């Protein structure tokens, strides 16, 4: 992966909280998170449900306000969404009344990227090729399988040619077999485009296979527990050596030990 030494995303003492009006309380989702992400890096966030992972990437995307600290993208404070950041959603979030192609073109209608019609067409075509959906331009999302829907979601995210790809558990709702294939596609796409990727998952295997770094986040308030470096050569998905290596098992065990207590805690509802 074309990792450089230039920081593209810098979070400093980032805190995010939500008002719980009914209980007249404030839920602190993330507390004093500091993280630097380099250009071209693939960072995976893992942690128990409700630990604030989604809040973190929502703060990078500019969807939610922060309650403290700062998030900067290319040294500019994030205040709103922008075309340099795109997002892939867990439930695909495709507009059901639009065809695959019209869904991918949505970003062009919402913002002026200064592209000519030919450039737009070329980009849509390129995105469709990247996710292997050529021939399905005129299909509607409800006609597609879960894996195909998510590939439309990825193609839409690629349409703006973003520097940063944010992915919130994109494969959580996809069956196990399709999921492995999608992981391979994700790795390939990010390798081909050289994008920086911030990826949330509940799967430790997915985290190790995709991430250059795995950031383990603890439960309420969300804080960084440990950052684990993963240095298997890429592409990893098509390399069957990776998954059966001793190092893989050790990494897996290490991360599981980090999240185990937290996961147990959330199941007990503490």
């Amino acid at each position, binding site marked *: 992966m074309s990792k450089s030494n230039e920081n593209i995303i810098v979070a400093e003492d980032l805190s995010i909280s939500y008002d719980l009006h009914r209980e007249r309380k404030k839920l602190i989702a993330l507390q004093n998170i500091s993280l630097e992400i380099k250009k071209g890096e693939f960072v995976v966030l893992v942690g128990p449900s409700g630990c604030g992972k989604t809040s973190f990437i929502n703060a990078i*995307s500019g*969807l939610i306000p922060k309650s403290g600290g700062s998030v900067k993208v290319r040294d500019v404070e994030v205040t709103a*969404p*922008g*075309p340099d*950041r*795109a*997002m892939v*959603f*867990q*439930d695909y*979030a*495709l*507009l*059901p*009344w639009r065809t695959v192609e019209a869904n991918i073109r*949505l*970003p062009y*209608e*919402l*913002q002026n990227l200064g592209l000519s019609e030919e450039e737009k067409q070329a980009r849509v075509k390129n995105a469709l090729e990247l996710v*292997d*959906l050529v*021939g399905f331009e005129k299909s*509607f*999302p*409800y006609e*597609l*399988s879960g*894996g*195909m829907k998510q590939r439309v979601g990825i193609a*839409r995210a690629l349409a*703006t040619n973003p520097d940063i790809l944010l992915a919130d558990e994109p494969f959580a709702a996809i069956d196990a077999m*399709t999921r492995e*294939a999608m992981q*391979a*596609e994700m*790795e*390939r796409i990010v*390798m081909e485009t050289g994008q920086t990727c911030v990826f949330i998952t509940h799967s430790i295997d997915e985290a190790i296979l995709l991430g250059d770094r795995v950031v383990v986040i603890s439960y309420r308030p969300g804080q960084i527990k440990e950052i684990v470096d993963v240095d298997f050569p890429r*592409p990893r*998905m*098509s390399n069957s050596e990776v998954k059966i290596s001793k190092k893989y098992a050790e990494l897996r065990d290490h991360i599981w030990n980090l999240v185990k207590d937290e996961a147990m805690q959330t199941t007990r509802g503490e």
Partner: protein
Amino acid sequence: MAKVSDQIKYETDDPNRIQDVGWTLKEIWRRTRGIVVTSINLIIFFILWELATTYGNINSLFLPKASAMFQELWVGMTTRAPEGAVFSGSILDHFLHSFKNLMTGLAIACAIGIPGGLLMGGNKYIESILSPYVWALASLPRIALVPLFILFLGFTTTMQVTIIVLSAVFPIIINAWAGVKTTEKSLLAAAKVFGANRTQLYYKVVLPYTLPFIISGIQQGIGRGLIGVVIAELFGGSNGLGYLIQRSADTFNTAMTFAVLLLLIVMSLSLINFTRWLEAKVAPWRNVNHL
């Protein structure tokens, strides 16, 4: 580097997977069985009715022959009252009066209800100001308002249309309102991430999402509106199908009463089926139940 996608091919990606099977007898039957079964069902129903009223000991004052009903309907629908007649015995005249009122009422109800519901869903101040009135009037049985509107407007077409509007407008408001409120959060988030401003969120996401809800509202509005038509004409008026029901029953012309009831059923079902078709057309992603 070898493209990973070359190694993994999904069955679902293969356009050749869908094969043309052409027309088979089974397929033709599958498509027409609904109409065929319903037609046979209805024919048997009317034949049994005819036999029961011909050979059974049934007073035709209470239940006329099916054939008498159809004859009354045919004659009533193919003749018009002569120019300047005080009272028309033609079903068609009354039908046109009621249908025109219903359509006018529905059009006004849509003109008020759709923007009203959208505004209530989109603005929490408008919502909190209007919602007590909407719920109060929506829960009030509309028939209770008829005497009041006769007092206000007399036995006029305006009164009849007003009753229809009041009957139809609330389901339209409430559905449009609910549509806006239930717009999926992730669709809004996606649009925001890809650069939508407030106006674009409304036009590109909320409105298309709400459209099938609005059509459902109109569908319910048609049902309520028809009740409004009949009630308004039964209570106050000298024309329309509601009036004709009353008049024919008063003059012991039961065949005419049944003919008008049948016409009301046909009209109502046609309109509701039209909106169902429309709903399936504009929102094929929603699995519309074909009841």
